[in-house]
């Protein structure tokens, strides 16, 4: 076997492997709507963190354009809202502060706005960061 022939077979095999991977990925993309950030977060909290996730029942969270959810992390209840922009993050922060400064109970992380029942511990906060998409 010449080197050139071995190299050509190698290229063909590698392309088949990579094409197979792309076909699987494309087929999946065509058959699935990409889940929203909120859906990914819900899935992460439920499947990877083993938490029970419900719907958020405060009016500020309900106004978040990316949706909201509520869960309990290590005994501390939290409402997570997903904003679409920095301006909306600021709007949600202001709305939560309107009836008194929530202090460290209010945690902003990227497009995620979390209102905790009590001041979160680092590990509690990390759980929500791990599931922030």
């Amino acid at each position, binding site marked *: *076997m010449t*080197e*050139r022939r*071995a*190299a*050509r*077979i*190698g*290229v063909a*095999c*590698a*392309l088949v*492997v*990579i094409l197979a*991977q*792309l076909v*699987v*990925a*494309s087929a*999946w*993309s065509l058959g*699935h709507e990409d889940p929203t950030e909120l859906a*990914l977060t819900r899935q*992460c909290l439920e*499947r*990877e*963190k083993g938490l029970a996730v419900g719907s958020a029942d405060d009016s500020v969270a309900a106004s978040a354009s990316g949706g909201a959810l509520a869960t309990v992390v290590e005994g501390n209840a939290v409402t997570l809202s997903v904003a679409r922009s*920095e301006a909306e*993050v*600021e709007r949600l*922060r202001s709305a939560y502060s309107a009836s008194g400064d929530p202090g460290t109970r209010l*945690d*902003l*992380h*990227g*497009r995620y706005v979390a209102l905790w029942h009590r001041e979160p511990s680092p590990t509690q906060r990390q759980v929500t*960061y*791990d*599931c*922030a*998409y």
Partner: protein
Amino acid sequence: MSRRYWGAVAAVLVAEAALLAWNAWHYDWLRGYDAFANAQYADVVSREYRLPSEAESGVWHTPPLWFALAGALGRLTTALGLGHAQRPGQLLAAAAGLVTCILVFLLARALFPERRVLHVVALVLVAASPALVRASAMYHPETLAVALATGGVLVAARALRTRWTLGSAVAAGALLGLACLTRAWAVPVLVAVLVVAGLHAWDTRRWSPVAACAAGSLALLVPWLANQELAHGSALAFNRPPPSGSVLDRRPASFYLGPRSLRALEHPITPLFRNELVPHLYADWWGDWALTWDSPPPPAPAALLPSGVVSERARQAVVGVVPTVLALAGLIALGLLAGARRSPSLALLPLSAAGVATAYVAFAVRYPSPDGDTIKATYLLMALPAAAVAAAFLIDALRPRGRSWATAGVVALGALVAVQLPFLIL
């Protein structure tokens, strides 16, 4: 030609030395993988001359060689007032990264003498590998293990091409044994070398070299494995027990199929496609999936992740497509060629890469991790030397001859490096 050849090699090595030293000096050691646990291990082993308990370091399952060296160097620099105790460990990792580049170059020369383009391409590919450059800045043992294992493979490859002597067999075994005493990922490389050496011995009816190679490596490795078996119940203990139940049920189908692979070229950062093996590994190899490299710490309150962070990693992911195809194709081609020509030295590379990949997949399936912690590109760094030489072989085997094609090749290789520089330099 000779002057240009050596000039190019020297230029690449000098640039790589500067890059790795600069990065090791500027990289915050605490951002590297398992940094704090590594520091605790190094502290215990260098101060108290014993292995850490499970409570003392989260990486107690890692063999001790690098920790002993990094800890001793750290104590020395602290005593002399030369900076923080982890800096020497980072510089040791950088030096090992540079040595890996040199050894890959020598390996290419040993396997394909007189193929100068191949040698230089292999050197450039390994030197510009983002996974190697990142690992070389961390306070982490990975690059030392890769350098030692590559040294063992080089000695074995040279011996297989000429004549196995007892001296070269013991040297190869000792280097691979030391690599296994640094990271367990060197064990599949050791197994690959012993398998190839065994097949060679079968053909030549000379068994003493393979026996000497095995003895040299096992003399170093067995005490560590025995300690792990006695102290932790398994020679290959890990820092968490595997979940109960069938191995086949531990990972969902998405782990094997990688349904979000296409997004690896567009948004290759955490937490997207977490625990999808192929896109997760690919994004981390060519970029920085977990955001531990040249990116701001978690976004400040209300700040979004800077778009440049994502686009830089997306560019890396796109750049990596061609070299990845070349490496995979090259390994397959070398495997075919080794079989057709019954060449044990050529078989070393595909066999060691396949061994590392198989061991890694088995590990990732055995120890699923919700946060994706057991999927990291650095775990596969042991396969980099084989991948770099294989990709260089493929390029050299298929390239059209002629001055204009040579110029185009140099430009393409230069572009591959230049495009990556903003990411590689801290």
